[in-house]
């Protein structure tokens, strides 16, 4: 039987505010346990929450970026359950009326484009952390994270493979960083995904029973976990066992998913509107104000790159896949000039990307700055160096040569004497020497061997250590041999 995989993702993006969503405590990562937990965070008797306006701004930005509608009035609700790292005994979240409704994200798997619809995105507070090691049979509680603002972003069950799920997660990861609402740090838990996975026989209308894989904190694990889960579900059904709705965890060591709790012992969260907080009202003015401060969005920038620099859709998509990449490209083109837009794109996606990949580096950490790369490309464009020589200069730039300034390429060219020889007289002189010392090749060419011509060009280039303008060498050689 052929199976269809159905995946929906829920993502918790930690918002880049200065303070917590309902208190003034810092949300900086890595502090000593419980030093960033004030009276409100530890839920002392009598304390009250006050909504952080910045968190709302983040939600509005996100809503605008995904083309969603921003609810003019949304409501904070209490989700009640007991756990030691949940100080109030309830989490403040949004339930019936979330702040962001609808919208979606375009994703790309290879050459295939697809639109993933969002159901909603809502604001909520994070819980603290329970530490079960190092306490000799007891548990430690760190409430630094308690009250950290989160945007929970929920998709429709639109994805049909682990590749699509990962493509969506990557696109979302890039977008939240692009608009500056989340630092995207998955190791520190700033961006965590849960995947709802089910399978159904191809052609069946009803969804299969889903299981939710919790806390996927890397794209690689997400793919492994979904692939394992899909195969597991297919095996279960094939062997006649029904899937039971459950929450599962992925174990990266074994590569397996395993049930945490089944639906039977699911909580009744007793949601109700939080009487300590007024409904969140967002007027058109506020939305317009946030919109004015929003950076150019990736899809808009992609279209602009295609139009202004004659890039292919694929190239433009890659250059706008992350804010850092787009920033790099834009900075380089600003110096190299719009006419070199295509060349800049080629260098970034070619030499630079390969080099970064090999060293497992992000573009933001590139040892070659956008200005330096632009400087190199300008020297190709004005024929100071050839493409081949440019590779030597690139290598030197990567190794930090050239003084580290924007004009590093010029320094290297100068210092290593890599400037292209364009003086016709000088080239002619070299060609005369080559012809004089390679009579055999000249004879072969005259006898009709085209290959011999290339050998002569090679000799001429070699004599100039690659610096002669290859086109001029070609032209002059042809003229002399033909004459």
């Amino acid at each position: 039987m052929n199976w269809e995989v159905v995946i929906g993702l829920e993502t918790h993006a930690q918002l880049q505010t200065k303070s917590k969503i309902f208190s003034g405590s810092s949300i900086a990562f890595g502090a000593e346990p419980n030093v960033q937990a004030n009276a409100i965070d530890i839920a002392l008797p009598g304390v009250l929450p006050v909504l952080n306006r910045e968190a709302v701004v983040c939600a509005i930005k996100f809503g605008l970026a995904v083309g969603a509608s921003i609810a003019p009035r949304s409501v904070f609700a209490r989700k009640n359950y007991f756990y030691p790292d949940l100080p109030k005994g309830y989490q403040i979240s949004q339930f019936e009326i979330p702040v962001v409704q609808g919208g979606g994200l375009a994703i790309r798997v290879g050459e295939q484009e697809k639109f993933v619809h969002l159901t909603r995105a809502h604001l909520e507070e994070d819980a603290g952390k329970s530490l079960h090691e190092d306490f000799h049979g007891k548990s430690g509680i760190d409430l630094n994270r308690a009250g950290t603002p989160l945007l929970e972003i929920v998709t429709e069950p639109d994805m049909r493979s682990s590749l699509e799920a990962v493509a969506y997660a990557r696109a979302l990861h890039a977008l939240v960083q692009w608009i500056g609402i989340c630092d995207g740090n998955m190791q520190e838990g700033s961006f965590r995904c849960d995947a709802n996975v089910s399978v159904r026989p191809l052609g069946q209308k009803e969804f299969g029973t889903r299981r939710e894989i919790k806390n996927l904190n890397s794209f690689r694990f997400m793919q492994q976990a979904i692939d394992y889960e899909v195969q597991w579900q297919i095996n279960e059904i094939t062997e006649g066992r029904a899937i039971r709705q459950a929450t599962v965890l992925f174990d990266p060591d074994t590569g397996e998913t395993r049930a945490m709790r089944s639906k039977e012992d699911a909580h009744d969260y007793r949601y109700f509107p939080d009487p300590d907080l007024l409904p969140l009202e967002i007027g058109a003015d506020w939305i317009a104000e946030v919109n004015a401060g929003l950076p150019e969005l990736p899809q808009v920038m992609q279209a602009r790159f295609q139009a202004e620099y004659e890039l292919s859709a694929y190239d433009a998509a890659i250059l706008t896949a992350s804010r850092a990449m787009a920033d790099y490209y834009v900075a380089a083109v600003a110096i190299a000039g719009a006419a070199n837009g295509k060349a800049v794109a080629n260098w970034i996606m070619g030499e630079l990307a390969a080099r970064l990949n090999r060293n497992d580096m992000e573009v933001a950490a590139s040892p070659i700055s956008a200005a330096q790369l632009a400087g190199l490309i300008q020297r190709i464009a004005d024929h100071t160096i050839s493409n081949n020589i440019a590779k030597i200069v690139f290598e030197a730039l990567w190794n930090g040569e050239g003084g580290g300034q924007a004009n590093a390429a010029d320094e290297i060219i100068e210092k290593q004497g890599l400037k292209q020889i364009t003086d016709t007289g000088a080239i002619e002189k070299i060609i005369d020497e080559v012809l004089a010392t390679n009579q055999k090749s000249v004879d072969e060419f005259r006898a009709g061997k085209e290959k011999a011509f290339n050998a002569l060009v090679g000799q001429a280039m070699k004599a100039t250590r690659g610096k002669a303008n290859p086109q001029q060498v070609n032209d002059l050689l042809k003229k002399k041999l033909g004459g």
Partner: protein
Amino acid sequence: MSDLINASLRELSTALAAKKVSAAELAALFLDRIDRLNPGLNAFIALDRDKTLAQAKAADAALAAGSGGPLTGIPLAHKDIFCTKGWRTSCGSRMLENFIAPYDACVVEKLNAAGMVTLGKLNMDEFAMGSSNETSYFGPVKNPWDPTRVPGGSSGGSAATIAARLAPAATGTDTGGSIRQPAALCGLTGLKPTYGVVSRYGMIAFASSLDQAGPMAKSAEDCALLLNTMAGFDTRDSTSLERAAEDYARDLEKPLQGLRIGLPTEFFGDGMDADVRAAVETALAEYRKLGATTVEVTLPNSGLSVPAYYVIAPAEASSNLSRFDGVRYGYRAPDYGDLNDMYSKSRAQGFGAEVKRRILIGTYVLSHGYYDAYYLKAQKIRRLIAADFQKAFESCDVIMGPTSPSVAFAFGTKSADPVQMYLSDIYTISTNLAGLPGMSLPCGFGANHMPVGLQIIGSWFGEAKMLQAAHQYQKATDWHTQMPGGMQ
């Protein structure tokens, strides 16, 4: 000294300014009375003489330096629901028996800043859940008018303290009548402001959408002065209202000529005892003499207020009290197995029966499948009740009626039947549901010479109007100056 224990806040202020008495002497006077009389009343559950006297000396210094205000050096006591820095803040519960608050509630902060001197913390029904003070972990407060009777609740300690002249004033909180009902049962004046006028920050939450702090004192004038200090916008409470400051005493001296008093048909039915009815009718006659007119109004949905309240208040309470889990502070059972066992034993042992009953009711009405039938329906009723009041206020300036259907009852008479107890608040609950201000003032005595309270309900932000009506009545009568025997 008897003039000082019966003095109004204004008189105390004058005496302090004229150096007739110092703040330290005044504090010592009341502390001595507390030492002598509190054992028979059980109104104070936390005292700290050194702390009180230090605060009094600071007030004296401010007065000497000329930087004092009208309340500087005047002692008062706080209901133990308000977090008070360095003081045990128990909320009448074993759960917080050893909880020392690390910060001051907004109300405490404001009264401290005004130079008032804290005499101690006052007993109350556990987590403010009760109408007789019988649910306190620290034992019931006795009514100074008759120690075999309840003082009312939940601010029973506040009421008994003022009635016995152990303090000139006290703070209270009112979720369903917890300021007004004990004020009525102990013969004093108490005011619950419009929801949002006083910050709830630092006031231990019972039912967040209904809780409101207010002053309790001997007279309306005293309440007005206290409210002037207690009220005001607070950025730490999202439900606190951002309004221009107002002087709640501004209309006190205006005559009542032309005041329209609404009398709800539903408040004058069979529910109230004959002695209460007689005292209230006499008070209304006095108001007509003062130039007011009375008009009948109807609040058709008021019969639904007790059931709606006993859905909404427990629902919010069940969630508000979840933080008392034995994890970070408060009571933790000495012996337990796993985490769930720790939770259930700590909460089973730390909370009393009435609190547990309300947590169970609240948990039930919020449960999946019951939410719509109970919680949502109660919220709809709440809107209907508010609409009834809005309509009533089209034809009157204030509403009057009884505060409590009966005078103070004997201990044990209602505690066995929660519904009987809940009906003690039948006239006060609807104001909380509608967010309206309300007050109670003494208007005579009923059977066994127990005080009767007259309730005044104002329109939203109608505090000054209510206080004017109460003050003019108190100028014409002397019920509010009466003091229980045996409290000299």
